[in-house]
């Protein structure tokens, strides 16, 4: 195992995981959802809003607002502020920045929050206006959105490594089983592999149950030093390591690996743990095939062995590899930028023993990953974090 030269996150903790239950459509604004999450954070942590002196926000649907507008909107006076537009990598990026801010005492309590609304038209508008490369060179080609872009990646990946739809389907089916135990998951009916395989095609080889359901929702957590958490009497999880990478492997003609593969050694070295030590794993599941790619790139198996890995493991809450325990975005819903937070917040609940019906027994050590921004032909942003509950 290689050594990490990076400054350890000594004494940096995460607390107060908050999820505002999702809604398929909402007539409320993103600001409303973010407001609910901040309110829930304050209530859960037993602090006053004025105790929050750092704020980090992510949202696709805030319109012209950024973090600064929200300070006045919500009556917050902060000395550290960030707005992170990294889609599915936003939560990991927010955590990394907030952790260093509290470590350097630039702030004491940072609220990391993401929220998005989903009006009937907002998903299409987000697709249309996603990025300049997307506007110029992707959206005019069938307007298939992320489904079409990931279909190209999935098709190439599946052909290259001999992966079948059934292999990929195992991930979706296991997550649905997990979601049935999450009272807030939008998907409430069981999913069999037969149903998965029989689903209608959306953009071959992507079929209906490979796609997330866009929705409204918000997620949040606090980052602080352990002495702050102790003084507040807050249960907290210690941050052990993180990685973040953008535009990795630009010379790969098509994406068969994410930036994790570049930094995975560092991820485990800094945490001082091995993949086998993890009790629960939360990957960024915008598509199950991307989750399979992460199993490889995050070191659970070698490249090309993702299909074998999911055949050999039970990914449900009670299985030998508990994964995306709340149902993930595939079954809980995809609340825009809050989808980036979903896995991290659920992982936090797991190691704090607060996950309730989705709790993995004795979960102490968790990994959460993020992936995002299909700017043109591939997802550009990747990140991951490993954190440990008080029991470890």
């Amino acid at each position, binding site marked *: 195992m290689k050594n990490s030269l990076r400054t350890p996150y000594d004494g940096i903790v995460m607390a107060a995981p908050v999820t505002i239950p999702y809604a398929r459509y909402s007539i409320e604004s993103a600001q409303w959802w973010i407001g609910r999450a901040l309110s829930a954070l304050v209530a859960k942590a037993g602090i006053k809003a004025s105790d929050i002196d750092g704020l980090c926000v992510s949202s696709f649907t805030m319109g012209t607002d950024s973090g600064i507008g929200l300070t006045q909107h919500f009556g917050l006076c902060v000395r550290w502020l960030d707005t992170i537009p990294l889609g599915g990598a936003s939560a990991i990026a927010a955590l990394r920045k907030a952790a260093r801010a509290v470590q350097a005492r630039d702030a004491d309590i940072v609220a990391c929050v993401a929220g998005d609304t989903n009006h009937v038209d907002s998903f*299409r508008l987000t*697709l249309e206006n996603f990025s300049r490369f997307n506007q*110029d*060179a*992707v959206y005019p080609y*069938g*307007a*298939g959105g992320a489904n079409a872009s990931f279909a190209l990646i999935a098709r*190439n990946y599946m052909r290259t490594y001999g992966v079948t739809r059934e292999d990929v389907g195992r991930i979706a089916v296991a997550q649905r089983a997990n979601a049935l135990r999450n009272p807030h998951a939008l998907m409430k009916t069981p999913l069999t592999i037969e149903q998965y395989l029989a689903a209608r095609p959306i953009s071959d080889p992507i079929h209906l149950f490979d796609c997330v359901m866009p929705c409204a929702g918000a997620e949040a957590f606090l980052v602080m030093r352990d002495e702050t958490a102790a003084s507040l009497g807050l249960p907290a999880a210690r941050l052990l390591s993180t990685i973040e990478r953008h535009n990795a492997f630009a010379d790969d003609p*098509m994406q068969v690996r994410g930036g994790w593969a570049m930094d995975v050694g560092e991820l485990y070295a800094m945490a001082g743990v091995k993949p086998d030590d993890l009790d629960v794993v939360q990957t960024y599941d915008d598509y199950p095939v991307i989750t399979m790619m992460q199993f490889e790139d995050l070191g659970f198996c070698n490249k090309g062995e993702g299909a074998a890995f999911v055949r050999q493991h039970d990914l449900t809450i009670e299985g030998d590899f508990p994964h995306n325990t709340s149902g993930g975005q595939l079954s809980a819903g995809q609340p825009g930028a809050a989808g980036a937070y979903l896995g991290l917040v659920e992982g936090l609940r797991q190691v704090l023993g607060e996950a309730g019906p989705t709790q993995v027994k004795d979960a102490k050590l968790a990994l959460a990953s993020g992936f995002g921004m299909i700017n043109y032909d591939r997802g550009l942003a990747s990140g991951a974090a490993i954190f440990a509950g008080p029991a470890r």
Partner: protein
Amino acid sequence: MIDPIEPPRRKNPLLRTRLPASPPRPRSRTSHGFTRAAAEGRFMLQRCEACGTFAYPAREACPACLSAGLVFVDAPRRGALLAETTARVPSDVYFRERAPWRIGLVRMDCGPTMVAHLHADCVEGAPVIMSFQLDKSGQAVAFARPEGETPNMADDRQWREMTADPKFRRVLVTNGRSMIGQEAVAALKAAGAKMVFVGVSEPWRPFAGEQLLRGQAGIEIVTLDAADEKSATDLAADIGGKVDILVNTTEYVRPGGLLDRKGTSIARDEVDQAYLGFINLAQTFGPAMRMRGADGINSSAAWVNILSVYALANWPAFGAYSASQAACLSLSHCLRAELRPGGVKVMNLFTGPVDTEWFQTVPPPKVAPRAVAQAIVSGLKGGLEEIYVGDVAAEIKQRLAANPKALERELDK
């Protein structure tokens, strides 16, 4: 392999005509380098002047060396199809109506990876040839087709969305008295046009070449004097709903500029015939064409203007004529904008002096009317917007781009 398209059936007048929708239109300013290429049927990519790297999508700095010297240059068209997908439930109205829609990712031999519309005969892993086409929004898109010809290649459903192929379409050629008009009729028929209406003013007055038009299947002489508003209105009332392609062959060439002419009577005729004639045709035929842009196999598709290349730079020997052509060129851009919501293309052909009586004293090279007709057909089949026919037109274009002042001085002789 694709099946040939079937001739359209007779339209049920009780059914609502499907209104045109437009594919997504927004583009960055730099991306219009591809629009320019597509308009002329060229394949251009940005290449870094400093390090030679080809880049795509349109960028403001080289991804290999950060130089700002990215220049659009003609680029090798060959690539390989890495992966394809079929979008079945697009979020956009245009594509939803046309789903399933096939796209792919192509690795160009010269480096970049391009998302492209796919011809149905493209095969994963196999070589493809890339072009930029103007889609129904008028913007450039990359289109990949197989290397080499395949059966019924031009009948591909997605390709036909990018072009204005005359096959099975009904065409109005506005002036059958001219040589260009007559050659255009023949070329369009040969290209598979279902019907060619040929406008002739005072058709009882005999004219050369008449026997080529009369009594031919699929060719119908109609009364049209474009300069006469009532004549254009009457004809549009009769056939306006079944003109899919309009070829404006109005021609009025007289020598002379300003000081050697007396009064405005000739200039007035030039304006009446070319400019006001254009307006009459646009106002009478344009609205129906704009509405019928998505009306099946024989949807309205294109408006063609034949302009003198001296619309771009005045040639004093034919100075007033040049000005009338410049007015028509300007008007064509207005028409293009107004027909765009219907997905109807406006194609301008620029020619040097044509081999007809009014350019009798002009030395060669001159453009044969048949060459103009062939360019009309190939431009429609390729979905082009600007075509330069013949050596003179091509040269004027280059000289204009190189140094407009030099061209101005040199045309004065």
